[in-house]
C-alpha cells in the first residue's frame, strides 16, 4: 500500500474514533490515548479500508479503559454501528443485541483488543503525555493566550496524524503552536527563534518541520474531502 493510502487510512480511523468518543461523551484524554494506540498499532499492522472501523472501535475501547473512563462494550459497538450506518446512508436502526451481527461485532472487538495489547507489548503508559498541556504551558511562557484555543485544536489534530509515534511531545506541541500562529497570522519571536526554548535547536528542527508537514497534509486532505 502506498504511503498516501496508509495516511488516509489513519485519517479515517482516527476520525471515526474521535466522532465516537464525542458521541460517547468520553474525555478527550481517552480519545487521544486511543488515537495514539491506533497509530502505534498501525506502525506494525497493515490495515485495509474495511478494517478501519473495527480497529478504531477496539482502540477506543482500550483507550477508555486505560484512562479510567471505561464504557460498556455494548455502547461502543452501538455508537460505531450508528456512525457506519450514517456514513453508508443506511437507515439508522438500533443494533439488535440478540442478533448474530452483534455477537460477531462483539467477538471481533474483544479479539482485536487483545491483538492490540499484544502488539504494544502491554506498554500502555508511554502515550500518556499528550501535546496539549505542553502547548498550553509554552503559550503561557510566550504570553500568547489568544493562540491557546487554536493550538489546542491543532493538538487534537496532531493525534489524527502519525506525529505522536514519530516525534516527541514537546516538538509536536511546538508544531501545533507554529501552525496555529500561521493561521491566526500572529508572528512569533524570531531572534532567537522561539522554539529554541522548548526544543533542541541542533537536533529537533527537522522534526518540527515534520510535524508542520503532517498537520498541513491533514488539513489539505480535509479541505479536499470537504470540496468533494
Amino acid at each position, binding site marked *: 500500500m502506498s504511503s498516501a493510502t496508509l495516511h488516509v487510512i489513519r485519517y479515517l480511523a482516527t476520525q471515526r474514533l474521535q466522532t465516537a468518543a464525542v458521541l460517547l461523551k468520553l*474525555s478527550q484524554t481517552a480519545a487521544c490515548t486511543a488515537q495514539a494506540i491506533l497509530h502505534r498499532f498501525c506502525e506494525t499492522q497493515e490495515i485495509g479500508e474495511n478494517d478501519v472501523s*473495527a*480497529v478504531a472501535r477496539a482502540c477506543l475501547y482500550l483507550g477508555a479503559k486505560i484512562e*479510567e473512563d471505561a464504557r460498556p462494550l455494548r455502547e461502543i459497538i452501538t455508537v460505531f454501528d450508528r456512525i457506519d450506518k450514517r456514513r453508508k446512508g443506511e437507515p439508522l436502526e438500533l443494533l439488535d443485541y440478540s442478533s448474530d451481527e452483534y455477537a460477531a461485532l462483539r467477538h471481533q472487538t*474483544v*479479539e482485536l483488543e487483545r*491483538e492490540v495489547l499484544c502488539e*504494544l507489548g502491554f506498554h500502555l503508559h508511554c*502515550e500518556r503525555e499528550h501535546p496539549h498541556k505542553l502547548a498550553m504551558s509554552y503559550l503561557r511562557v510566550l504570553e500568547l493566550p489568544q493562540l491557546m484555543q487554536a493550538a489546542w485544536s491543532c493538538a487534537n489534530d496532531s493525534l489524527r496524524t502519525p506525529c505522536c*509515534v514519530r516525534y516527541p511531545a514537546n516538538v509536536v506541541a511546538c508544531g501545533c503552536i507554529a501552525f496555529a500562529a500561521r493561521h491566526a497570522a500572529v508572528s512569533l519571536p524570531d531572534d532567537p527563534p522561539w522554539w529554541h526554548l522548548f526544543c533542541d535547536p541542533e537536533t529537533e528542527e527537522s522534526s518540527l518541520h515534520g510535524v508542520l508537514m503532517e498537520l498541513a497534509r491533514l488539513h489539505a486532505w480535509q479541505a479536499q474531502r470537504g470540496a468533494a
Partner: protein
Amino acid sequence: MAGGASAASAAVGGGRAAAGAGAAAAAGAGAGAAAGAAAGVSAAAASPGALPSPHPLSLYHVFGRIGEGTYGVVYVATTLSSASGGSASSAAGHPPQKRAELLAGARGADNGAGGSLCALPHVADEDGAAEVGHPRTGASSAGTQRKLALKLLKPTKEFDGVSPTAVREMALLRELNHPHVLRLEAVHVHVEEHVLCMVFNYAEYDLYELIRHHRERLAKSPISLHTVKSLLWQVLQGVEYLHSQWVIHRDLKPSNILVTSEIALGGGGMVKIADFGLARIFQAPLRPLHDNGVVVTIWYRAPELLLGARHYTPALDVWAVGCIFAELTALRPLFQGHEVRRSGAPFQKDQLMRICELLGAPTEEIWPTLGHLPHWAANDENVVAAASEASNSALAEARKRRRLNASTPTPGEPPPLLADAAAMGRGSSAHYLLSKMLTFDPSARLTAQGALNDTYFSLEPIPGRNALRPPEGTGAAVSYPPRRVHTEDRGMPQSSEPAQQQQRGNK
C-alpha cells in the same frame, strides 16, 4: 486481519517506536495462525499437568493452585521444555495456532536470555525427566527449577474483553523494575479462549503467613527484631520506588507483601510487593481518583479515606505500611474494625473508632483539613462525638487496668496506647516511627523516603538484605512452612466467599 485473527506475538521493545518495531520482527510466529482460528478451539488434547488445552497453562509444568480470588486463580509452575517456537508447540500435541503465543517477555532485550521466556533453555522436559539449570543460576544449580507464579485471570462474565483492572496492572508492571517489586516475567494472551495469564517470579512466603505462623504455630513468639526491621525497610524501599514513579499501590496489606525463600534467584528473604490490581498513576490525574470506587482493605485504610477523602495521595500507602509494621511486632492487625458491607461506599465508622481508640480523636488543630472531609463535615453517625468518646473510654479502660501511668497522653509524645497495641516499648524508636507513619493528617504523615531516613533504621540491628536470615552469631533463622499448594481439586468451581476473606484465606 479483522475477524478470525489469532494470537499475535510481540517481542518487547523499549519505548514507543521500539515496541512497534519489535512486534514486526516477531509477528512471523503468529502469522500463519489466522486460518485455523475458528475451528476446533475446544479440541481436547491431553497434556501432562496442565488444564485442558489449548491454554496458557499448558506452556508450563503446573504443580497446583496457591490462591484464588475474584480476579482469578494463581498457580505455581515451572517452565516446560517446549517454551520456544512452533516446532516445540507441535511436539506438545497442539498445532501452533491453538497454542497461546508467548507475547511479552517482560523486560526487553537488554536482559539477555532471561528477558523472554521464549529464550529460556529447557528447565524440565514434558515428563519432568531432564533438568537443566537456569542460565542465571549457573550450572551448579542444575536440578533446581525456576518456580513461577501464574496468575490466570478469569474470563469476564460478560465476555467484555480484558478487564480494566488487568489492563492497569499489566501496564504498570511493564514500567516498574525494582528489587522489591514483584517482577512480571511474561504475559500470555490466548485470543480465542479469552484467557489472560500473567507470569511472575515465585515468592514462597508472604507477611500474612509469616505472621500467622508466629501467632499460631510458635506460641506467639515474636518475629525477630532484625527480621521485622529488614522487612519494613525493604517494604519502604519498594513503596518509595513506587511513589518516585508516581504510582500509588492503594492495596498494601500483609498478604500482598511477598517474601522470597532462600533458593530464589536474586536472593532469599527479599520483599516483593505484589498485586497491582488497584494501583494507579497519580501524575496529573484528570479525574478524581475516587471514581474507581473506594479501595484498600479496610483494616489498612487510612483515616482520610475512611472519612470520604476524594483524592488519593501516596500517604495512604504509608499508613498501610505503618499498620503492617505494627502487625509484624504485635502479630495481629492493629486496627481490626468490623466492615460495613453495603453497596456504594458506606462509612466505615467502626474502623475509624478503632483508630481513635489508639491514637486519640483527630482535631482540626492536628489535622487542619479535617473539616473538609465529607463524613466529618456532615457528622455522619455522630462521628465527631463518637471519636472523642472512643478515645476517652479507651484511655479510661487502660487506666483501670493500670497500664497507663500518665493521666493524659502528653502532646508531642507518641500515643502511649499505640505502643501497647503494637507491642513496642513506649518511647522506643519503633514507637516513634510508627506514630509518625500513623499521623492523622496525610500531609503531615511521614513519606516513605522520610521513614527510610528515620533513626530506627540506623540503630542496631541494622536492616539486612536477607530479612529471614539473622546476622552472624545472633541465633538461628526461623524456618517457615512453604506455601500450601492445592493439587487435587484443581477443576473445582471457585467458592463465592467475599473477596477479602478469600484472599486472606488463600495467601
